[in-house]
């Protein structure tokens, strides 16, 4: 089945998370779209809409965390960036227990265009000390990540998406903090995806098999802390890495993987992502194609470094 990761967030809020009396949700008047309103329906007294004010959103969440609450705070990924310095100084620096959970990450946010497309959020958030960064790939992983984030002590950033995405996890999967998963084994190249791009990587592996190439596919939900051991394992086994993310290639998953490889086991790497440019209006399908974020693009990148 397919479901958006934001819908999965709404689902886990109304089925499980609301039962924790310490959890509060702080919203900047966008909960109907982020699906945080599912919490409001269950625990209205623990739901606070501060209005269209993302700096105040982050600051209010910091104060709630400072007195023992577990605030889930967020807007669209892009607008949450407006509160970046508050996130830095009032949440990450004091290491407060705020869970920043945002929707509409990446290019595929509807057709509003570049002002609404957060392509840099992963890079920005990854650079903040104390903050963990998670980009779930499907509905199941979203629910597990949100539950794990609430159980985790310290600030967490979870980036969700608007579009429905396919389930890519086999039954019996487990979510482990800071760990990636090998979804498909292979010896020629390792495709490492995060968010919706892991599904594209799986399709790319199918395409590569037609060329006689066996691609390993790794899902990397946690960009920080990054699963350095798994990255090294994949590099040693395949000697070729392609990373795929729905965001700028400057500072995101690809960079985190490259930083690991350079230190531990340098191999060739290709970076699928937004190539240092802003987005624009368009359907998800058209945008993914235009900005080079399809399974075909991932397969082509793999062929390039294998050639």
């Amino acid at each position, binding site marked *: 089945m397919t479901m958006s990761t934001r819908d999965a967030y709404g689902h886990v809020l109304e089925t499980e998370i609301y039962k924790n009396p310490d959890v509060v949700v702080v919203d900047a008047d966008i909960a109907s779209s982020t699906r945080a309103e599912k919490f409001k329906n269950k625990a209205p007294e623990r739901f606070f809409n501060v209005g269209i004010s993302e*700096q105040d959103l982050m*600051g209010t969440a910091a104060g709630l965390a400072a007195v023992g609450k577990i605030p889930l705070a967020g807007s669209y990924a892009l607008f949450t960036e407006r509160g970046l310095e508050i996130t830095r100084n009032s949440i990450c620096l*004091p290491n407060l227990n705020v869970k920043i959970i945002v929707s509409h990450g990446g290019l595929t946010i509807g057709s509003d265009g570049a002002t609404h497309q957060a392509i840099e959020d992963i890079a920005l958030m990854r650079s903040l000390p104390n903050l963990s960064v998670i980009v779930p790939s499907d509905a199941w992983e979203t629910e597990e990540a949100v539950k794990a984030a609430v159980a985790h002590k310290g600030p967490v950033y979870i980036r969700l998406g608007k579009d429905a995405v396919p389930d890519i996890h086999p039954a019996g999967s487990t979510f482990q903090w800071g760990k990636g998963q090998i979804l498909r084994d292979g010896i020629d190249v390792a495709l490492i995806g995060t968010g919706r791009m892991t599904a594209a990587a799986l399709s790319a592996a199918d395409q590569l098999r037609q060329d006689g190439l066996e691609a390993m596919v790794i899902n990397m939900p946690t960009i920080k802390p990054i699963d350095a051991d798994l990255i090294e394992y994949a590099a040693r086994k395949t000697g070729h890495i392609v990373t795929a993310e729905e965001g700028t290639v400057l500072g995101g998953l690809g960079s985190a993987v490259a930083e690991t490889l350079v230190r531990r086991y340098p191999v060739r790497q290709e970076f699928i992502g937004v190539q240092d440019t802003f987005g624009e209006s368009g359907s998800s399908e058209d945008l993914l194609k235009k900005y080079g974020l399809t399974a075909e693009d991932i397969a082509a990148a793999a062929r390039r470094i294998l050639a």
Partner: protein
Amino acid sequence: MTNEELARRSTAVREYVVKMLAAAGAGHPGGSLSIVEILQVLYGEFMHVRPQEPHWPGRDRLILSKGHAAPALYATLMMHGFFPEEELWNLRKCGAMLQGVPDMNRTPGIDMSTGSLGQGLSAGNGMALGARLDHAGWRTYVICGDGEIEEGIIWEAAMTSAHFKLDNLTLIIDHNKLQLSGASEEVMNIMPIADKFRDFHWHTITINGHDFDEIRAALKEAGETKGMPTVIIAETIKGKGVDFMENKAAWHNKTLDAAETKKALEELEGES
């Protein structure tokens, strides 16, 4: 406390501030000296805290949103027994308990890390909402600078405080009328402060921020005001208590040299 005791403590805090800044070789004397009386009344009479149990959940919270005035708060906390006097002399040194601006994870008695202007009121709202959820009686106090209210987040937060009718929150604005580059009214006219907050549905009280009776009465009135947050606009003198610093913007972040330190301490010792 008697006003005499509060005055004695205020002078002692001022002496500590001057000595700390001299030892640190950097810091913000002007805005530290303007909030001394306010801090003495708060910690002497209003703040329910347990210095030996600084994380006691039932304590009142104070957020020094104008975090650069930390030396005055540090000296006050030390005098109330939160940490030993020798910590004061490590202010701003690498690895010290006392950072240039307040750090809640390093310093007992600091309830919120601050220093980047504007962020304390939002955090105070979060604390006040948390207290209300828990049906807890403790209060949240936030101290802002007057120049600080030029930050946009202050007005986002001011709407939030009033919208949620946070009568368990008190904002104190240190209206010393000067900021780094000069008179606030000339840099960016913040006046009229009280009218702005009244328009935002706050209860407002304007006082002389160096008069113990007026500070005491205002804090009491804030505690008794129901259904809306209270802002106390404290008219103060930047650099208060040291004649050559008073009302001089240059002393916002100027370091005292040895001669200035001696002169300031002689003046303060003359008062005590």
